[in-house]
């Protein structure tokens, strides 16, 4: 049955009315395909290429979203008063001088550290490769704590790379597109960082709570000597993050009655919400070779068993 009628724009349009409601095959196929995609993406890594291609297609959108911020910064630099620029110049020069003095001391400590390691027959600490990146988007709503960076596989970013800002550890790269990459922040519930108390040397694992200013330490016994103000550094265990980078400061220590462990609240040091520029740490080449060799040996053992 064909019917002519005018719609609200006063157009003559005709509809083919189907007397029996029908469910197109394409709609059922689409729903089934979505369900299959969810399961495959959740349990396997087979869709990483599809995700990489899709992120390349949609990559202009985060860039467009980031543009107003860049324009704001650009306007800010254009209209800054000369006096403000002079003051900022002076302040930065003083800061560079202080950092250079600290760097000299750091070089001396590093030499001493390597000599001590050599005397104990341990491997010397290796230099990490660095990649600088800008933060394009921050997604700290709903159930996730993520940021998007403007560097991808094109720039040498790999999955698993630790991300730092000027203050401390921010998170880890979990997905790499061609031009952009996604970083899981340490405040996400799915992120766990092995840490060490700088004061006592005690090791623990800090996990996120989905709040941008709170982390929590897992499974610390009541005999622990941790106290508010303690600085937590990465311990290097698990080879996720290199050792010695600041993660957070202990904010509160609670000892609930009837529980086996104490509850420790930690405040992250890195500017998770505010950082504009970040650094991605690459693995030193020697460590990469060692890890590749370990992986190969595990594969051989799996094949034999």
């Amino acid at each position: 049955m064909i019917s002519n009628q005018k719609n609200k724009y006063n157009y003559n349009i005709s509809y083919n009315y189907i007397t029996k409601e029908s469910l197109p095959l394409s709609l059922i196929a689409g729903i089934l395909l979505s369900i299959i995609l969810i399961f495959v993406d959740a349990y396997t890594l087979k869709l990483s290429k599809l995700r990489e291609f899709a992120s390349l297609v949609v990559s202009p959108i985060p860039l467009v979203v980031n543009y107003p911020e860049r324009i704001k910064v650009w306007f800010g630099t254009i209209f800054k008063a000369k006096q403000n620029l002079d003051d900022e110049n002076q302040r930065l020069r003083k800061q560079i001088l202080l950092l250079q003095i600290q760097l000299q001391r750091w070089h001396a400590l590093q030499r001493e550290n390597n000599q001590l390691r050599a005397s104990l027959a341990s491997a010397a600490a290796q230099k990490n490769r660095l990649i600088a990146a800008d933060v394009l988007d921050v997604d700290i709503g709903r159930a996730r704590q993520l940021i998007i960076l403007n560097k991808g596989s094109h720039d040498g970013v790999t999955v698993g790379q630790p991300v730092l800002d000027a203050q401390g550890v921010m998170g880890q790269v979990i997905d790499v597109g061609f031009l952009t990459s996604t970083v899981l922040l340490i405040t996400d519930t799915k992120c766990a960082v092995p840490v060490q108390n700088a004061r006592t040397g005690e090791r623990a694992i800090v996990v996120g709570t989905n709040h941008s200013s709170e982390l929590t330490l897992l499974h610390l016994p009541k005999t622990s000597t941790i106290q508010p103000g303690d600085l937590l550094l990465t311990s290097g265990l698990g080879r996720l993050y290199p050792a010695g980078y600041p993660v957070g400061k202990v904010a509160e220590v609670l000892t609930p009655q009837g529980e086996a462990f104490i509850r420790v609240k930690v405040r992250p040091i890195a500017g998770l919400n505010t950082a504009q520029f970040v650094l991605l740490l690459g693995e030193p080449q020697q460590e990469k070779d060692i890890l590749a060799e370990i992986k190969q040996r595990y594969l051989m053992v799996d094949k034999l068993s």
Partner: protein
Amino acid sequence: MNGYHIKYLHLGLMVITAMILSILPLPPMLQWVRPSWILLLLLYLQSFNTGMLRVSFIFLCGLCLDVLQFCYLGEHALALLVIYLIMKNRERRVYFFSLLQQMIGVAVLSSLYHTILVLCDYFSGYNTHFLYTVIGGSIVNALVWPWICFILDKFCMTYRKN
């Protein structure tokens, strides 16, 4: 003849604008009250530009949203297609509903949309706050719906196909 009122170029512009609004940075407290722009746009197009949407187009929009919001691939596509399935063959009735009735309908569909997304979050191990996301999101979508209709009506009238 189908009721295509706007060109595909303008449809693409609307979808891109909706995606930009979907990932626009907001303060943490306002993240909970962000409308589901793509859902609202597709509901409008399905209700007032019947015959324009295709299953493949909705599926691709869902995939793009999944990549932008870093969900499992297929999550938003599933939610959007389920809403499309429910609205299919009922979209012409929207013409006869008052604005308040349309808002209630949008709230119900939004709650279903958010419920599917929250269930997918639970499945992937994330702990989403159910009440804030489902009920808050539905209320926000219902409140934004009249404005969406007003703006898109103007846009469609300006760029209609002759």
